[in-house]
Every structure is written in C-alpha cells, then in structure tokens.
C-alpha cells in the first residue's frame, strides 16, 4: 500500500478512536477535551493529505489550539474534574439516538458510493496564496459578514459571562 493511503488510515483510526473516547468518557471531562485535541490534530493531518494546506494549518491552530483550550479553561474554572452524573437518559432516548445515528451513517455511506477517482490538482492548490486571493476577491463579502459575527460573539460572550450588567 502506498504511503498517503496508509497515513490516511492511520489518521482516520486515530480520529475515530479519540472521538469515541470523548463521547464515551463518562468520568473525566478534561480527558474528553484532550481526546478532542487528538481528533482535531488527526483531521488536520487528513487535510494535509487532501492538499488543503492552509485549512490544515488553521485547523490545528484554531481548533486544536484556541477552541479546545477554551473548553479546558471553562472545565477547570468550574472545577469539573469529576463528572458525577452518568448518562442516565431514558432508554427510549438512547435507542432513538442510536437508530438516528445509524440511519445517518447508512444514508451518507450509500449516497457516496462509487465516486470517481480524484483528478490531479492545479499547481499551488490550497496554499495560502491561492486561498487568500480567492478569499479577498470572490468571497470578500463573506469576510466582512464573518467579522461582524465575531464582533457580536465577543460582545455576547462578555455580557453572558459577566455577573451583573452595569
């Protein structure tokens, strides 16, 4: 087997294993967040194999760095090391969600069977030069809208986390 394919399977196994570790870890929320870091980093590796270089770098920086650190920060701020409530949902909810997940899995898998082979990519595909050029020409409105969204999120998070609004 060629090396990229082997690496893909390695990263895929890591991602699925750590995702399961996060969802099924009932005792320790910090360990769950650490599993999430592993998922994010292995997805970053898969993006590299799919020749999305800028996206891979941003995935590791924003997801593996910023977002999961925010999760860890909140877990430690609230002192939640021991997750003392088990997932004691009604069995109906559990069975229903398992069925829903299996249905989503089967639907997605059957919809994507027999896709053609991927063509070779153009030169410089997915690098910062090309992505940046497209981002600031065709998608410049998107950048502006996202900047507004981030501003709203900053203000919203401040107001929500503040004890009392003066």
């Amino acid at each position: 087997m060629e090396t990229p394919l082997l690496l893909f399977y390695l990263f895929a196994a890591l991602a699925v294993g750590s995702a399961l570790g996060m969802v099924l870890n009932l005792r320790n929320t910090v360990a769950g967040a650490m599993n999430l870091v592993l998922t994010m980093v292995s997805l970053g590796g898969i993006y590299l194999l799919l020749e999305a270089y800028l996206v891979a770098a941003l995935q590791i920086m924003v997801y593996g760095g910023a977002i999961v650190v925010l999760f860890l920060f909140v877990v430690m701020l609230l002192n939640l090391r021991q997750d003392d409530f088990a997932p004691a949902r009604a069995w109906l909810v559990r069975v229903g969600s398992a069925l829903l997940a299996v249905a989503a899995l089967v639907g997605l898998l059957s919809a994507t069977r027999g896709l053609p082979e991927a063509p070779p990519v153009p030169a410089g595909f997915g690098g910062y030069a090309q992505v940046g050029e497209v981002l600031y020409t065709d998608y410049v409105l998107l950048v502006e809208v996202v900047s507004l969204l981030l501003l709203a999120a900053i203000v919203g998070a401040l107001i929500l986390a503040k004890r009392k609004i003066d």
Partner: protein
Amino acid sequence: MIPLDHVIGLSAVLFSIGLIGVATRRNVIVMLMSIELMLNAVNLAFVGFNRMWPGSDSAPALSGQMFVLMVITVAAAEVAVGLGIVISMFRNRDSVDVDEVSLLKW
C-alpha cells in the same frame, strides 16, 4: 491517491459519533464538544469534495475550502457564546447538567 468514498465515510462516522454524544450525554460541555465534532465532520466532507473538483490551472475552484474557513470561524464564535452560557448557567444552578435546566420544557 486517497479514495473519496473513504473520506466521506470517515466524515459520516465522525458525524454519527457526534450525534450520539449530543443525544445521550447530559454534561453540557461534552454536548458542545460533540457539536464541534459534527462541524468537523462536515468540514472534512467539504475538503474531500473540494479535492474531488479542484478546478483547472487557470481557474482553481476553492469554494469548499472557503466554506471550511467560514465554518471554523462560526464554530469559534459558537463556542465563545456557548461557554458564556455554560458559565452563567453554572452560576445560577451550580451544575452543568442539562436536565437541571428545563424551564422552557413543557
């Protein structure tokens, strides 16, 4: 060469794991993390399909990666606001159990 079916299959598996996490866990922080996992699964599908249709040398097609950048930003905003809600919820109820916060439930 990585077959695209396997990429989309991995994306479907990760999405289902996230779905199970959101539906069965009661710790609201783990639920938020599962939502992140589902968003990541969608990102993987976007990147995979963009790899499938990369455009030509003169006109590279990067719409999928643009959407991934957008999803990453929205996820960051969502986590910031969501964790703010978690903190104020913990302050009021002294717990991060979603079953404790059922005021809007009939």
